[in-house]
């Protein structure tokens, strides 16, 4: 108990835990759709491509979310243009666009005074989350979370069968754009905690983990955020006691839990399904 409570006596630890848990929950909810649509690479791209937007927003004093949204849009448009108007395939188009925009962000950081703040965007700075940071994450996170939950059924329909969405008078284009906008917003939330480089882990791993555990999307939407939040808090505690990089520790914990589920999930796990089969065989043998 002492072990759990001691870190909480520091304000910076409390802020770190609140921010991370919140970012983990929002990212995890979004990740459920990303892994099912096959947008993981897109998540990677958008989360990196927002960097120049965030830096420019910092320079002119605008909200980070605004810069991020603009550059998410730029990235998605450029990817579409390169893919549709040249013989370059989509994965290459994504790679070219996001790494170039990310590099642009790094260049902008290197010429911007007061580099310390901005370097935190790249690797995250969980333990240095300030009160205004926390408020920004809180507002953006709650907005993104609310939209995702209110529109969850439409987004699932879009992920599963966009043609039907169109046939009943919805706009798959608009739903896709909504999901991309939320991806940009969520990237900003997670930037603060684990940094640009590792955001993509928070945007993919929880959804993939939950997908291996259930056959119901509604349950994925509960499992993913719960597992992600627990992993994140565990990661912070471990980093506190082992004195390791906090953002990286959070992602590492997520990865370890995914590996465990991958191996031992009773439905889909590599070893779990075999164990279940062996048990059934044994039961059958006993019955016979």
């Amino acid at each position: 108990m002492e072990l759990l409570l001691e870190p909480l006596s520091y304000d910076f630890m409390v802020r770190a835990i609140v921010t991370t848990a919140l970012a983990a929950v929002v990212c995890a909810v979004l990740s459920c759709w990303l892994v099912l649509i096959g947008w993981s690479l897109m998540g990677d791209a958008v989360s990196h491509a927002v960097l120049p937007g965030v830096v420019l927003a910092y320079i002119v004093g605008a909200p980070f979310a605004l810069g991020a949204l603009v550059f998410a849009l730029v990235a998605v448009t450029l990817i579409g243009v390169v893919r549709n108007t040249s013989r370059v395939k989509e994965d290459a188009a994504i790679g070219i666009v996001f790494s170039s925009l990310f590099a642009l962000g790094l260049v902008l950081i290197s010429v911007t005074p007061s580099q310390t703040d901005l370097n935190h965007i790249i690797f995250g700075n969980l333990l240095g989350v300030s009160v205004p940071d926390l408020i920004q994450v809180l507002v953006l996170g709650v907005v993104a979370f609310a939209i995702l939950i209110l529109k969850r059924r439409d987004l699932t329909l879009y992920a599963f069968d966009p043609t039907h969405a169109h046939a009943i008078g919805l706009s798959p284009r608009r739903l896709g754009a909504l999901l991309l906008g939320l991806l940009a917003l969520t990237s900003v939330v997670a930037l603060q905690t684990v940094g640009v480089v590792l955001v993509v882990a928070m945007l993919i791993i929880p959804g993939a983990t939950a997908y291996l555990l259930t056959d119901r999307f509604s349950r994925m939407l509960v499992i993913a955020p719960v597992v992600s939040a627990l992993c994140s808090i565990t990661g912070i505690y471990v980093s506190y006691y082992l004195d390791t990089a906090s953002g990286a520790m959070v992602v590492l914990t997520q990865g370890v839990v995914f590996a465990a589920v991958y191996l031992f999930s009773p439905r889909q796990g590599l070893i779990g399904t075999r164990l279940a089969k062996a048990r059934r065989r044994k039961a059958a043998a006993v019955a016979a």
Partner: protein
Amino acid sequence: MSTPAILVDNVTVHYGEVLALDAASLTLDPARICGLVGMNGSGKSTLFKVIMGMIKPDAGTVRIHGEPPSRTRREGGIGYVPQSEEVDWQFPLSVRDVVMMGRYGHQGFTRQASKADRAAVDEALDRVELGDYAGRQIGQLSGGQKKRAFVARGIAQGATTMLLDEPFAGVDKRSEATITRLLRELASDGCTILVSTHDLHALPELCDEAVLLMHRVLMHGPPELVLQPENLAMAFGLDVLNRDQRDSHERRSA
């Protein structure tokens, strides 16, 4: 004269340089089942997309019960049963979840299901005899059951026009008969049904009429007539083969 259920008038669609539909025209009366026959790449899917309003034709008009497709879509009038390959069967949804998606057009902002929605879904599931499978993940159905689940979605939706893309692909004989019976029932209730299929032997039993498509509508008539070998040859490009045979025959007799 009554308003046709589906009216496709001189519709032309290009994909870049490729001509998909070339002044195609088709009129279908209400409560009829029409089979759409043509090779891969003959424009069947494009015709479906034009009827659903997913593609705006370069020329020509489409009317569903006299209205533009966008209007019918908003009223939930168009039901679509996709090809098996287009569906992610691993998707974590139950049969009931999928059928409920037919009701979204009738629901509010968050698509919260009402009692009436749930009743409509139960009724549709019973209608296609999948009541006992409602809780299954969609991938755990047989080929024929999968098709029926999507037909149920159209029924729950209240669709008056249904488009089915290759409903007999990967379906065994018994399920084929079940689907045929189900579609005939729907048609007798007033639903207009357009079915694209490779499965020519199923056509006479299922369809009231058939259409041969090769970018344009080559022929539209009773299935027995459309399925005459010489007519099929037009759509499937076998006329070359026939001509060769005829040539050699003529040479021999000469």
